[in-house]
């Protein structure tokens, strides 16, 4: 029991030590504190897991708020779902902390960085360990804030700061949905505690309007946090942050919290097939969009970022067809291989003296062997080649999708073809061929230190074998993940009889599997034919033309958003601030400046004039209010007078 409260405590302590002692703690102690906090937290998760028996444990630390109609406890809920998420967060988190110890060692904000990372870990743990929706929301906002701080970590130039702010504000737009969902739950269920809400939800019918509203509102929150259409554009921009941040926050953990939230609320979603269908299509569209944009990107981190957007789409696709545990399975394997790929990319960037453009790379295979090999493992894993982990989870999702809707399945296969292609394109262009960078960079090329390669190796091993926690049924090997998670979906089974029923025969399953492997292999061969010899390098930005240019520029979605949303809002704001507010003020400022002695007749007029116009506006306000309030009844008086 006590281990549960300790899980978030260690990162918090780590944050406080590194944060309050910023500048005072020696540079050697900083990574030890940061990584140690994360590791201790991992150990606690392990201990909690070992002591865990079947039923969920609720630990109520104190009453957060207890007034009539609103009772929320500061409570933790440890169950199968939170254990899995905690393992991913603290496990991958610890590895990334370790990696950062090497990667960030030259940075002057070393202590600050670790403090932020620990704070992030704390928020993320609150998010998945919280026992009610409000706790989840606190963590939800907390990770958003940390993401803001870490993206803008190098606030040397305004682009980075703008990327950070964009991420935060887009997340906030999503949070509008989440908050509204919370208020709806509170109004309709009278509580926010998971267990009570799900218990009460059982009384609702499938397709109930309120449930649809709640689930849609919550999903809007997930769209923001997990970068789904239309709120995905912040994620690629978020790559402005240090690479370990991209690996931890924008690949492995934070962006998957939307999936966690839906799996957590699976009863509600099962009750609302409409929302599920919506989620599936949004997920599919995002998967395809991300993959197509990923095809032509030349920034190593941007490729990975779009790949993350696309993979998140797959996870939502899985959730949308009620394959909750498959979606979660993909969260786990994705955390392994995407963290690996990002860290590998970081190692490459490190070797390339902070250059991220793959057109300047090439032939790095022999120069940085460990990085290259682990990167290859990650690339194979994401492409879906058995027995690497990505194959199992993606195949499971696609099998469920096939059962649900054949068109979706076909589109999903198309996406996975593109995935394998752009990943291997990235791999070949980066590691094959001959070096295309400057002499200086070539001279500087080196393998990263141990603290960076160790996490790479560990993650490579996990990416390779991580899929074995869930074998497909056809192999007659245990699907440990499903067995473990089964109690979480108890309520879903109760409310919707169609949940979890599989109709696919074993033969068909084998065929599907074969098909997806075939697609991946063809795609890899295709990528090899184009980029394998290392001579075919993507062209410079200006030479990109036609349809390719559209994709290369990310379908101009950012520009579209700027035109449609940002533009008008800033125009209105500008109007308010500079025309209504400032013009009037400037008039006085200038006129008072002209004659300070107050004798000028003009000033007097102006002063009175401005006050007069203010009063005029207020009177107009009063007029409109009174009209609004009494207009209808006044109209009848008027009629009465006329009739006389």
């Amino acid at each position, binding site marked *: 029991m006590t281990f549960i409260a300790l899980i978030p405590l260690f990162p918090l302590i780590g944050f406080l030590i590194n944060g309050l002692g910023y500048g005072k703690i020696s540079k050697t102690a900083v990574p030890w504190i940061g990584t140690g906090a994360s590791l201790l937290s991992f150990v606690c998760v392990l201990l909690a897991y070992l002591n865990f028996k079947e039923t969920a444990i609720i630990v109520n630390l104190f009453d957060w708020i207890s007034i009539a109609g609103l009772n929320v406890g500061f409570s933790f809920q440890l169950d199968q779902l939170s254990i899995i998420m905690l393992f991913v967060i603290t496990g991958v988190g610890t590895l990334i902390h370790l990696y950062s110890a090497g990667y960030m060692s030259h940075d002057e904000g070393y202590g600050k960085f670790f403090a932020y990372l620990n704070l992030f870990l704390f928020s993320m743990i609150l998010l998945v360990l919280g026992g009610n929706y409000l706790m989840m929301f606190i963590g939800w906002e907390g990770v958003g804030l940390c993401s803001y701080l870490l993206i803008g970590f190098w606030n040397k130039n305004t682009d980075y700061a703008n990327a950070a702010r964009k991420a935060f504000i887009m997340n906030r737009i999503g949070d509008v949905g989440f908050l509204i969902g919370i208020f709806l739950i509170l109004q309709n269920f009278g509580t926010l505690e998971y267990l009570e809400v799900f218990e009460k939800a059982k009384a609702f019918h499938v397709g109930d309007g309120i449930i649809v509203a709640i689930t849609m509102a919550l999903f809007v929150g997930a769209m923001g946090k997990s970068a789904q259409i239309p709120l995905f554009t912040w994620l690629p921009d978020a790559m402005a942050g240090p690479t370990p941040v991209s690996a931890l926050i924008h690949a492995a953990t934070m962006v998957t919290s939307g999936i966690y939230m839906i799996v957590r609320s699976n009863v509600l979603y099962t009750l609302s097939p409409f929302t599920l269908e919506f989620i599936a299509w949004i997920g599919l569209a995002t998967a395809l969009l991300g993959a197509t944009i990923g095809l032509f990107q030349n920034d190593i981190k941007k490729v990975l970022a779009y790949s993350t957007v696309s993979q998140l789409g797959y996870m939502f696709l899985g959730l949308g067809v009620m394959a909750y545990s498959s979606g979660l399975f993909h969260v786990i394997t994705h955390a392994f291989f995407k963290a690996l790929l990002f860290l590998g990319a970081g190692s490459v960037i490190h070797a390339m003296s902070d250059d991220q453009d793959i057109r300047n790379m090439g032939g790095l295979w022999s120069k940085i062997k460990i990085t290259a090999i682990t990167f290859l493992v990650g690339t194979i894993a994401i492409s879906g080649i058995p027995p690497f982990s990505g194959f199992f989870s993606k195949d499971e999702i696609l099998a469920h999708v096939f059962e649900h809707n054949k068109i979706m399945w076909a589109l999903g296969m198309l996406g996975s073809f593109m995935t394998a292609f752009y990943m291997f394109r990235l791999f070949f262009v980066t590691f094959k061929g001959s070096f295309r960078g400057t002499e200086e960079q070539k001279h500087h090329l080196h393998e990263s230190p141990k603290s960076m390669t160790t996490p790479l190796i560990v993650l490579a091993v996990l990416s390779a074998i991580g899929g074995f926690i869930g074998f497909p049924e056809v192999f007659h090997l245990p699907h440990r993940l499903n067995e473990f998670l089964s109690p979480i979906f108890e309520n879903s089974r109760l409310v919707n009889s169609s949940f979890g029923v599989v109709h696919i025969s074993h033969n068909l399953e084998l065929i599907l599997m074969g098909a997806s492997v075939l697609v991946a292999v063809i795609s890899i061969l295709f990528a090899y034919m184009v980029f394998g010899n290392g001579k075919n390098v993507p062209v410079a930005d200006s030479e990109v033309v036609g349809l390719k240019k559209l994709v290369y520029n990310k379908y101009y979605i950012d520009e579209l958003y700027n035109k449609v949303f940002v533009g008008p809002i800033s125009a209105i704001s500008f109007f308010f*601030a500079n025309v209504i507010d400032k013009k009037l003020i400037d008039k006085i400022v200038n006129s008072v400046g002209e004659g300070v002695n107050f004798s000028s007749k003009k000033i007097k007029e102006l002063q009175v004039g401005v006050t007069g116009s203010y009063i005029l506006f207020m009177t107009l306000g009063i007029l409109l209010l009174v009209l609004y309030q009494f207009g209808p009844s006044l109209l009848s008086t008027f009629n009465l007078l006329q009739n006389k």
Partner: protein
Amino acid sequence: MYPIIVFSVSGLLMLFLGLSVNKKSLLPYNLLFMLVGLASNFLDWNAPGLYFNGMLEISNPIILVQWVLIFAAILVSGISSRQFDDTHAYPAEYYAIMQFALVGALIMVSFQNLLMLFVGLEILSVGLYVLTGSDKRNLRGNEAAIKYFLMGSFATGIFLFGVAMFYGATGSFDISSGNSVANNLLEGKMFFWLGMVFIFIGLLFKISAAPFHFWTADVYQGAPTVFSAFMATIVKTAVIFALFRLAAYSFNLEYENWSKFLVIIIGLSMVIGNVTAVFQTNFKRVLAFSSISQAGFMLLSLIGLGAQSYGNLGFYSLSYALATISAFGVFLVISSNTIVEGRPSENINVFDGLFSRNPDLAIILLISMLSLAGIPLTSGFWSKFFVLNDAAAKGYFWILILGVLMSAVSLYYYFNPIRASFKKTDLGKIEISSLSKYTLYVCAALTILFGIAPNILRSLF
């Protein structure tokens, strides 16, 4: 009721002390008087009822709000340390007027009779007209004072007009008499309704809700910063509670009637306040527009008007006061260290490099901005959560969506000072007097405390 007496007397004493005591020891006296006032409120605890022929109501929730007011005044006095040291300042008069104004504010949260409300409102307003123009060499301040006075009088006139109609309709100034006309037919109520709308408008002006907000930015900018902080917190709290009392006791049966125009005012305040703040470069103007939008949020609890709304509003007031006073406090210290063209700079770029110049202040600023923006684990989150929940309980979902969206917009300008404070700079360290330092620490610590464990404060109400 005791603090009213205490501050009436101590204000006079303060004026006399100004003659005999040196300037620097006036602040301790002021704090002493305020603490006495705070303590004297204990005498009323658990003695609910009407006093002075039904002029004042005393009850524990009212006393709590009075504490909030006095506590905010103490914090404002705390950040005023060293601000009135130069020869052109008259701290004795300033503090005396602050105490008198506090008398007005205390009356406004406990009145039972509209006459009392009027007297309280006028004491508070007249005091502030004077304080706004108290820096006589500042032409912008003079300007602001005149403007505030003219427009304030206009609003008072409207308010009085409303009170007269209220009296005409009910034959009494007692706030509970509003219910006596509840059963009248439409024709009989017309007078009452008009009075109600005018009373609302008069008071909405004072909390600077849109579209009656025009004076706010000019006055906040022109007034000496300490008094802007006073205006933003104490005046706002007093008036919103006066409105709440009226809504809950006089006009509660007319809820359907006034709520439909109040939501429009709330929506306007949120939109105009937040949207206009985005491009402001003067920090005091930013806070002025932020206060307009916060007024919109506070008014949501009037829309809620349930058993919990009073407590929600109390929580909101205190957490808003803490955040706003610490924002003004940090700004005050920095701006008086950054003299541009002979006077303290008010541009938002005074925060540049604050983190390296004084990390404590930067952290306090961060906490205060996060709280104003309503980010979790600060008290500002809970206050917004409570009032939005109030609105949701009444089914006003569109205003809820607007509110949450606008708080997303507000991030844009609340983050500007934070971003600036993490910039690199080679400017020197900033020194700060220990009193204002501890005041700011208290504000920040309470903001976090109430953010982590809101129940401590919330369960009191």
